[in-house]
């Protein structure tokens, strides 16, 4: 197994994530975060989750960037430059150790695409075998989201509606 595509992508992801954390100007950080989302969308597409890649590309690198930039326009220019204090010693030592622990624990995860893993043996085969006959929908993801798990999706829609309402209540200032 070669990593000719994954390895440069991983390096770009780490570089953009680190850049967004270390850059001094908040506007630059927002734009670097947008490019990070774009690389993450490439990762999703590479893993075969094209629907998630779509959402990541549109929301992560498009919509979220616009929201961040509009927020930065609304605040004082001197507030967009941040002075970062050096991290405490405990974090510098502890967080890499935690990462090593997580890498060690990741050894026990089932391999990617393993047909015998619990995630692939429970309800996934039922959806894959029956969704086309049940719903005439070739895209299994859509069939699961909008039919088999429609109540979940309804509640997600409620969450998004609530988020819009909360922004409206907290931020609107054009009282007529």
């Amino acid at each position: 197994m070669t990593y000719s595509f994954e390895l440069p992508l991983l390096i770009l992801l780490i570089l953009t994530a680190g850049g967004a954390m270390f850059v001094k100007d908040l506007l630059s950080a927002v734009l670097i975060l947008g490019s990070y989302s774009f690389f993450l969308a490439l990762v999703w597409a590479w893993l075969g989750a094209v629907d998630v890649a779509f959402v990541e590309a549109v929301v992560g690198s498009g919509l979220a960037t616009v929201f961040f930039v509009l927020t930065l326009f609304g605040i004082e220019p001197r507030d967009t430059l941040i002075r970062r204090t050096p991290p405490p010693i405990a974090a510098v030592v502890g967080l890499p150790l935690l990462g090593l622990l997580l890498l060690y624990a990741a050894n026990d995860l089932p391999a990617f695409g393993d047909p015998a893993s619990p995630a692939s043996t429970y309800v996934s085969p039922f959806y894959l075998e029956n969704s086309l006959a049940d719903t005439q929908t070739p895209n299994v993801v859509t069939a699961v989201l909008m039919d088999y798990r429609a109540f979940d999706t309804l509640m997600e829609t409620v969450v998004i509606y609530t988020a819009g309402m909360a922004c409206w209540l907290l931020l609107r200032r054009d009282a007529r």
Partner: protein
Amino acid sequence: MIESRHDSVIVRHLGGGLIPLVQIFALYILFFGQHGPGGGFVGGVMMGTSFILGILVFGPTDRSTVVAKRVAEADGVGLIIFAAVGGLCLIGGGQFLNYAELEIPGLAAPSRRYLGILLTQIGVAVDIAVTAVSIVFSLSVVSGNGDSHV
């Protein structure tokens, strides 16, 4: 915050050409979501993004922003569409959101489910698009008569 239309003629012309393309692509994503990648969520976000592009490029006095402001007042319509489809299933005698019970004569259960998925996807898309536009209006106060605050 958005006080006038964008200064650069390049941005305005590119935006004017790009917005209809984005909207057509969003509709394609929405209505082709049952046969390919995409669906209500992405289609709605793209539709909202095209409106947002119009607001950012053409400023608060342009017709597209006025349309977007009207759109942003429709908060909750998509949710009502989604829940109403579920309610219609209840009226048909089934469970909530069980599209096989949609009372449409001459359609077999799979076709009813197909139709139910399509209608609820439209509901999700409307909800997401309206919410995205509404959040942009919340973040950057653009009043309809041209003068802006913040």
